[in-house]
C-alpha cells in the first residue's frame, strides 16, 4: 500500500506499508524532505511499525513525536504530514478528497 502527501509549502512525504491482522507492517517513510540526523528516519519507521490500522492522524503523529530523539530537526516534513501519508496509504480514497490534514 502506498500513500503520498505534499505538505503545503513543504516537501513530499511517501509511505509504503502493509496491513496485517489490523496492524501496520513493513512501514517505509520516504521523500524529498530534510532530516537531521539522518538516522531519525529509522526511528520514524519504527514508531509506525505495529500501530493499529485504525489509528487516526492525531495518534500516529503523537507516536512519531514520542520516538524522536531530542534535537532531531525536520525541514519540509512534520509528524502530522507523515501521519496524513500513512492514512492515505491505508485508505487510498482519502487522496482524492483534497487536503484532509
Amino acid at each position, binding site marked *: 500500500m502506498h500513500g503520498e502527501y505534499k505538505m503545503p509549502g513543504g516537501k513530499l512525504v511517501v509511505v509504503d506499508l502493509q496491513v496485517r491482522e489490523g496492524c501496520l507492517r513493513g512501514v517505509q517513510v520516504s521523500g524529498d524532505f*530534510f532530516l537531521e540526523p*539522518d538516522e531519525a528516519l529509522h526511528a520514524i519507521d519504527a514508531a509506525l511499525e505495529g500501530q493499529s490500522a485504525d489509528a487516526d492522524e492525531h495518534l500516529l503523529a503523537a507516536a512519531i513525536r514520542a520516538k524522536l530523539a531530542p534535537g532531531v*530537526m525536520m525541514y519540509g516534513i512534520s509528524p502530522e504530514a507523515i501521519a496524513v501519508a500513512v492514512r492515505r496509504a491505508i485508505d487510498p480514497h482519502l487522496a482524492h478528497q483534497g487536503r484532509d490534514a
Partner: protein
Amino acid sequence: MTRTLWHDHDWHLIHTAPQSPALHMALDEVLTHEVGAGHRPPTLRVWEWAAPAVVIGRFQSLRNEVDAEAARSHGIEVVRRVSGGGAMFIEPGNTITWSIYAPLSLIKGMSFQEAYAWMDAWTLEALGELGIKAWYQPLNDITSEGGKIAGAAQAHRGGAVLHHVTMAYDIDAAKMLQVLRIGREKLSDKGTQSAAKRVDPLRSQTGLSRAAIIDHMIATFRRLHGLAEDTLSPAELAEAAELARGKFSREEWTADVA
C-alpha cells in the same frame, strides 16, 4: 560557538577534471568531515561529471523515484547522496554543480530557510550579473521568471555544513521523465502541470557556454568572499575513492530506502 561571516574564513577552490558520480558522493562526505574537523579550510568545490547519473536524496525511495530499467538502458548510474531533497537528473554537459563546505558557525542561529538563502546569496548575485533575475523559492529552489533554475540541499555533519547546488544548464526533459518518476502529488502546490515545464535552463536564458557560466560564478564568489586555488590532497582523494567503492557504489547504501 559564535557566528562567523564569509570574510572570517579563508576560502579555497577545488575544480578538478571530471569524476565519477560515486566519487562525487564520497568527496562530499570526506570534505564535509575534513572541514568540520578543522583539517581543511572552508572550500568551494565545483563538480565536473564523468558520466550521466541520477542522484537521489538521502531519504528518497529508490524504486519509487527511479525507473531502474530506463536508467540502465540509457547507461545512467543511480547514486544516493548524503543530503536530503529530490532526485537530480545529470548529464555531464547539462548541469552545473558545486558544494560548499563550511563550519556550522557560518549559519549559526539561522532557520533552515535563512541558511539556504545565506549560502546562495552570492549565487543570486552572480546570476543577476548574467542578466537573470533569480530568487530563492523556499524551501530549497532557486527560480526565475522563466522557471526553476536550481535546487539546493544542506546536510550537517560533525561541526560542518554541506551546501550543494545543481543548476540546469540544459536539459533533455524527455529523457529525464523516462528515468525519474515524478508524480502529480509532488507538483500539487507548485501551480504547474509538468516537471519539464518547471525548469528553464541557463543555456536558453543566457546564451553563454557552460564553461563561461562556471567561470563567472567562480569569479563572483572570489570577488565577494575571497578564494584561493587548491587541490584535493592525496589522502582526501584516497579516502574518497575507498568510500566510493565501499559505500556509494554499493546496493546497501543506494537501496537503503528501498
